[in-house]
């Protein structure tokens, strides 16, 4: 076997119940499934029994990197797999910062966190050992930023470590709590923060400085240079300049920017909260994940005068991206840029998923407007655009002062199931949507994608291409094939592990070359087939847990509000879902 696989195959197991750790050689997995999601889904199948409680000790948090991690530009992500406390199914979330390289250079291909601690702890991993440390002083801290600062100062490894931690939301088991790395990057979706909270695990710090000898430095340098030039080229330019916020204006023009709980695709305040305006007025610094020349992370600075004293100011930094701009901006009718940034900051401090939070609050606002609930439940008047009250509501979601906010902490579908208004409670399989209302393929991909995420297959861009070309909609079967084909190829990228912003750089040909320089003998066609197999492994795992795609609820609001491709037809979506359902249910080990 290739030496590179050997160096990647060390899996670190950490048992929080027994405060034990050990390392196993899992060449069996890394030689068959590359790394990343390919390996992580297999580890999940080994570790998490059917029927496991997502917030119980039998749930397991698995982090995996891949053969290209730390080797080539933009191989900068970690894949996390766990059972989601938001919807009760196997879930996947990706995070950046320094997490990927720290894990790889600590000498591991994956870290498996099992069991649950009986007291708050944090765990420090380095090249030699694992330390279990008392997190009593960190538990309950108001801002997750402070937690990061304390750990930063208490621990060694500045410059080659990751500090992944949860906020109060994770401790309090808010089902969509995030895990945050390096203050501004998140394993954002599906509630990994609550899984950490249920294990009383406040933080996972990984410190890694190891190096690995390359098998063929000449071949490597050649591929590296090509990738370095490509990753700095036009395909990533927009992520560098304006960041993902570059999407706001074009989506609004198209009529695909979700506004006021998806009641419209156009927002009159779009320009005010656009990437352009934020860059001109608020952008303070750009940051990169390790090994990424693009630096898509955009931080705004907000200067604020204290109310009780003139000329007494503080300056805070707030990360912004398209998704929070949509979910906490246009979707809540907020066009006040300062207010939006303050709201994002509140969400960051608590450590909850910005998308879900925005969608939950949009539902609550509409429910209040329609008289389904009253201020007795909401405690503050939730009104489109009133960011001050939304900030209070964010704190209430985490502090849970009444039954209503306890429901909001379970996600929009649970809340609406109790209080009503399901037709405008926006989620597929209990997962709230990303910020696109581009057309039927986007919606279909949310319904059938493994994570119910826009990143599963990027179908929002298939929709947009259809708008641009004026072509007619593909048949449901062709649409399903397009979505599933793209999601399958992305399994290869997510096994290597490549940031999806570099998806157009890492073509099959380039990946083949990049792997070859490390000693792998695997051609493009084999990669494509591997992607299909990983796709089916994942979706079959979810099916075994009881996911019934045919029963996925399609909120009426999604069908009523026109997209640039017209109103989405339920029949069309159902046909795509049926195709998917058949594909997964008919697949067996022998068809893989």
């Amino acid at each position, binding site marked *: 076997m290739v030496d590179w696989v050997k160096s990647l195959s060390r899996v670190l197991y950490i048992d929080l119940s027994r405060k034990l750790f050990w390392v196993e050689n899992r060449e069996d997995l890394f030689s068959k499934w590359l790394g990343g999601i390919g390996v992580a889904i297999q580890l999940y199948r080994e570790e998490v029994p059917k029927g496991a409680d997502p917030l119980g000790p039998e749930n397991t948090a698995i982090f995996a990197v891949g053969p290209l991690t730390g080797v080539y530009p933009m191989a900068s992500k970690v894949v996390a797999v766990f059972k989601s406390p938001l919807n009760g199914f196997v879930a996947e979330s990706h995070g950046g910062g320094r997490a990927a390289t720290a894990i790889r250079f600590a000498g591991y291909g994956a870290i498996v966190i099992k069991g649950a601690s009986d007291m708050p702890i944090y765990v420090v991993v380095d090249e030699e050992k694992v330390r279990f440390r008392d997190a009593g002083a960190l538990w309950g801290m108001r801002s997750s930023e402070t937690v990061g600062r304390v750990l930063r100062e208490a621990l060694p490894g500045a410059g080659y470590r990751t500090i992944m931690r949860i906020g109060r939301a994770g401790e309090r088991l808010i089902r969509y709590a995030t895990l945050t790395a390096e203050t501004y990057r998140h394993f954002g979706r599906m509630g990994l923060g609550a899984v950490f909270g249920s294990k009383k695990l406040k933080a996972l710090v990984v410190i890694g400085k190891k190096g690995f000898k*390359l098998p063929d430095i000449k071949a490597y340098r050649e591929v590296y240079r090509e990738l370095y030039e490509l990753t*700095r080229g036009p395909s990533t330019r927009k992520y560098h300049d304006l960041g993902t916020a570059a999407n706001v204006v074009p989506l609004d023009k198209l009529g695909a920017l979700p506004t006021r709980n998806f009641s419209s695709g156009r927002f009159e305040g779009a320009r005010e909260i656009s990437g352009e305006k934020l860059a001109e007025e608020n952008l303070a610094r750009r940051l990169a994940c390790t090994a990424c020349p693009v*630096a898509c992370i955009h931080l705004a600075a907000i200067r604020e005068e204290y109310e009780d004293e003139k000329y007494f100011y503080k300056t805070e*930094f707030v990360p912004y991206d398209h998704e929070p701009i949509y979910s906490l901006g246009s979707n809540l009718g907020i066009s006040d840029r300062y207010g939006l940034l303050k709201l994002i900051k509140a969400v960051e401090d608590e450590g909850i998923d910005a998308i879900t939070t925005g969608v939950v609050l949009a539902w609550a606002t509409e429910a209040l407007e329609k008289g389904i609930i009253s201020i007795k439940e909401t405690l503050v008047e939730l009104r489109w655009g009133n960011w001050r009250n939304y900030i209070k509501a964010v704190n209430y979601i985490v502090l849970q002062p009444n039954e209503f906010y306890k429901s909001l902490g379970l996600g929009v579908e649970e809340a609406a199931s109790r209080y009503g208004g399901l037709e405008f409670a926006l989620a597929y399989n209990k997962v709230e949507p990303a910020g696109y209302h581009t057309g039927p393929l986007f919606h279909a991909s949310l319904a059938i994608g493994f994570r119910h995420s826009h990143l599963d297959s990027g179908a929002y861009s298939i929709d947009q291409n259809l708008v641009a070309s004026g072509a007619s909609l593909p048949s449901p079967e062709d649409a399903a094939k397009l979505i599933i084909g793209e999601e399958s190829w992305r399994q290869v990228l997510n096994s290597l592990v490549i940031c999806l912003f570099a998806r157009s750089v890492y073509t099959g040909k380039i990946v083949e070359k990049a792997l070859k320089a490390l000693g792998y003998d695997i051609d493009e066609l084999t990669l494509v087939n591997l992607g299909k197999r990983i796709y089916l492994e994942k979706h079959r795992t979810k099916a075994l847990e009881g996911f019934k795609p045919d029963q996925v609820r399609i909120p009426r609001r999604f069908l009523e509000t026109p997209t640039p491709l017209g109103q989405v037809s339920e029949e069309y979506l159902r046909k795509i879902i049926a195709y998917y359902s058949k594909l997964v249910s008919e697949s067996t080990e022998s068809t893989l």
Partner: protein
Amino acid sequence: MKRLVVVDSNRCVGCDLCVYACTNRYGHIGISKSAIHVRSAGGVERGFVVIVCRACKDPPCARACPVNALTLRQGGGVVLNPSKCIGCGFCVNACDIGAVMWDSEFMKPVICTHCGYCVTFCPHNVLSLEEVG
């Protein structure tokens, strides 16, 4: 002769590609053999500290070496003779800016040769190679 300089650390986005480039010179990936170190200036929102050898004319590291393994380099800085080096680490402690790194595999210092390979892979013009008299 040339020396490596940090033109403007405020342009640094913390991608570490300079660090990886430096390690690559030895046919490795990773951080362990890099003569450059990048870390946050106390939280990434405050930016980054980029630590490189500044090619001192009268380098404290050389003076601290008990076995003359570090000799003066033309144009500033030092050249390491690894066969002489006993791995005591005095040079690391002697450099107040922390620019003498440590290779824990070989137990010897990593000394910047001012070759400028890192400059080629800095995407945001933080580093440059400058002529010294």
